[in-house]
């Protein structure tokens, strides 16, 4: 594994943007949890050029193909986290309630140790999100955990749909209403801010359309002043972007669905949605999805009326549901977060595992590429010592595009890529707890919370 990381380091220098290294391998005799097509015992998976090319018993592989013996091990699709903030240097551009034009993909941090640690928890893809300081935050970036590469663009999940963060409730109210003295200071204001932004987006879109028409007749037609903010709103209106909305309370979830209905917007996943269970029928009817915590609650007032049964109730009501981390620690054990739905509501193994594989893939619009073990899909695979829904299961190896990026047995302890030339011993950070969603907002207010 040391060699693989080293090799991939070399590779990175020759990367053409958009191209990423892929590998070939055959994973032998594992218990394969395909998620979508049942569980296959003693089954081989053949990987060629980073894609799954065959699944079956005693497959033949071209000579020289790297063999991984998974006898007695459990093989599942790489875990997908629909909500995280790892691998990026900037989370919140908290200086305006509306900043849809900013893209966290511009701030990818290839050296973030959290990416490697997520790999060590079987997670191969995550949705690096803008924070929740703003009502309409920035565009998020679906990334693959190709830890070891230096080029930030190599982390981008190719052809993943654009996604954009919205945030309702306490966070934007605290940052802007209480912290900066601008709207919104209430949930009424939150709705107003969103409606205003969509309305401005409509006006802008109309102006642009008029200009396009005019241009055909008159080559000297004057375009409207380019506004990336409104252009992004127009892109949402045109269905080019999936909204990912930080939300907790049932009322605000309903509010946003009403707003979207008025503006004809359909694609949305509610993030956190701690009270999603209260409006599960409405979510299902709208076609909205939900990405939730397994059991986080009571860390602020708007999550006081939560239940760990949320994912189960949503699932039983037909809402496409995922379990996310929003944390550098939780992302490392999403498999066990998913397992908690078996305690709280008794979901089946496939239902529980879907919450961290195919369902988040659906929410991010990448379910044609990842999220299950199927021929033609990306060879993003996590290998566990036991069934991943058992607390005793330990991730052994994690593969991205057919390249081993985590190997429990062979990785060195210190996996840092970038070394500070002036720091002799890595600093002690303690067991820090950071509200990732609000990272970068401490400038905005003086109070502790």
């Amino acid at each position, binding site marked *: 594994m040391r060699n693989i990381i080293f090799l991939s380091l070399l590779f990175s220098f020759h990367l053409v943007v958009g191209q990423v290294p892929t590998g070939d391998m055959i994973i032998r005799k594992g218990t394969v949890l395909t998620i979508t097509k049942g569980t296959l015992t003693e089954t081989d998976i053949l990987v060629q050029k980073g894609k799954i090319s065959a699944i079956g018993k005693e497959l033949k592989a071209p000579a020289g193909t790297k063999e991984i013996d998974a006898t007695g091990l459990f093989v599942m699709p790489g875990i997908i986290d629909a909500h995280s903030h790892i691998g990026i240097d900037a989370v919140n551009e908290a200086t305006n309630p509306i900043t849809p034009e900013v893209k966290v993909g511009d701030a990818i941090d290839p050296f973030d*140790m959290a990416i490697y640690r997520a790999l060590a928890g079987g997670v191969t893809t995550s949705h690096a999100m803008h924070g929740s300081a703003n009502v309409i935050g920035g565009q998020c970036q679906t990334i693959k955990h190709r830890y070891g590469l230096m080029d930030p663009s190599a982390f981008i999940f190719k052809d993943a749909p654009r996604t954009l963060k919205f945030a309702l409730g306490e966070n934007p109210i605290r940052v802007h209403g209480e912290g900066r003295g601008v709207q919104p200071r209430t949930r009424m204001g939150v709705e107003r801010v969103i409606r205003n932004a969509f309305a401005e987006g409509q006006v802008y879109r109309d102006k642009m359309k008029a200009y396009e028409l005019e241009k055909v007749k008159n080559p000297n037609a004057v375009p409207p002043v380019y506004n990336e903010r409104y252009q992004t709103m127009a892109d949402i209106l045109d269905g080019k972007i999936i909204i990912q909305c930080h939300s907790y309370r049932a009322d605000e979830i309903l509010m946003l669905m009403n707003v979207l209905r008025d503006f004809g917007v359909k694609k949305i996943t509610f993030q956190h949605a701690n009270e999603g269970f209260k409006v599960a029928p409405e979510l299902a009817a709208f076609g909205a999805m939900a990405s939730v915590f397994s059991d986080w609650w009571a860390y602020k007032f708007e999550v006081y009326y939560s239940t*760990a049964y949320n994912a189960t109730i949503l699932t*039983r009501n037909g809402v496409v549901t995922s379990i996310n981390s929003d944390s550098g620690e939780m992302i490392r054990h999403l498999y066990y977060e998913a397992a908690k739905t078996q305690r*709280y509501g008794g979901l089946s193994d496939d239902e529980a595992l879907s919450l961290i594989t195919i369902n988040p893939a659906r929410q991010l619009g990448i379910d044609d590429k990842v999220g299950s073990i199927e021929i033609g899909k990306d060879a993003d695979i996590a290998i566990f010592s036991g069934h991943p829904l058992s607390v005793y299961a*330990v991730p052994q190896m994690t593969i991205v595009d057919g390249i081993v990026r985590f190997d429990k047995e062979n990785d060195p302890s210190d996996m840092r890529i970038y070394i500070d030339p002036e720091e002799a011993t890595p*600093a002690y950070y303690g067991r820090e707890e950071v509200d990732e969603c609000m990272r970068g907002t401490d400038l905005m207010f003086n109070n502790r919370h």
Partner: protein
Amino acid sequence: MKKYNPILILLVFVQSIIVLHAQQVEKSTFGVFALTNATIETVTKGRLENATVVIRNGKIEAVGPNVTIPADAQVIDCKGLTVYPGMVDSGTHLGLQEIESISVTQDYDEMGELTPEMQALTAINPNSVLIPVTRVSGVTSVIASPSGGLFPGTAALINLEGYTPEQMYAGFKAIVMNFPSTGRRGRYDRRTDEDVKKDSDKAIKKLNETWDRVKAYAAIDSSTNGKADYNPQLAALVPVYRGKATAMIEVNKESDILSALKWIKDNKIKAILTGVDEGWRVADSIAIAGIPVITGPVISQPTRESDRYDTGYKNAGIMHKAGVKVAIRTDDAENVRNLPFNAGFAAAYGMSKEDAMKAVTIVPAEIFGVADKIGSIEVGKDANIFVSTGDPFEPATQIKHLFINGWNVPLESRQSLLYDEFLNRSPGVTKESVPGKS
């Protein structure tokens, strides 16, 4: 319009919910119970198959395969189920915190650096919504601990059942101390290196000065037969100084742990180390010092960028192997229910399952000096017991029954009530309420 204090409104609101909630809750029942046909994990005396536990007067009256079932017993058939001693979380804010971000619901952090006389037990809210949520995972007792300054107060061991703090009190208190840290508080701690050092030097100086005064106060107290001037802060520390009370010393960084061990030795203090995130680096030293450790959360990130990814998970196991007496805590409030999963992670990463179970049962009981009452299933002990479908560390396992001090506590919480109400919501979706379908 008249202005209302939003906090007041909030409190009224919260209280009304609690009242509402209380009306819906099934009550605990007391009596004689026989848990029959069970597998029993006694923890201290192995596993018994097809056995019975009899509970009477709040105590375990009998345990074993050949126990006669008393005629007056309410029989609970535990065929296919396993009986465990209730789990103990050795470090929480449970009962002292309702909502993390709302400071008026936080009762663990008093003003001042030196407040050892503050009693956690005073502020325990027996009706916290968080408590029933915790019980459903088999946690029956917790340390409710103040936190904050150098000596933030006195922690108490409580059982998670009772209408008053006194009814909940489980017989152990300790003075909490935060050993001065020489490290940063996190990646976002923006103090300069000099400031970090200055602050920690100041803190250590303060600790030593405080201790000098405690010594002096204790001497005067002795020579005046307890007639020293009224000084509750120093008075609260005298028993620790005299080795009669225990100090729970929070310390995490490698070098700080070594300093703390030395300080404990120099001052001959009865101590428990808590936190101990970097204990794996100095496990031998801790073992040699013979100081017990409460560590956790196990499910946590490494403390340094360069550390192997699983050092947090392995920490408890490494210390245990080195010979340290290790108990596990969550250091949580609303999710103390994850204690068994923290123990499970310790087991997945190097501790045996048995030792991990002990780290949340008999080991904390021994550390707190209450091993005669809780921590295992033995005749004469308090009936703190739960019955599950299997290994309680496994997420899929269901907890079926739970007893605290012999009370059969219903496994109901606001979270389960919300589930019952909303799983099949009625009315479901109505035409008016379908967004996008108007």
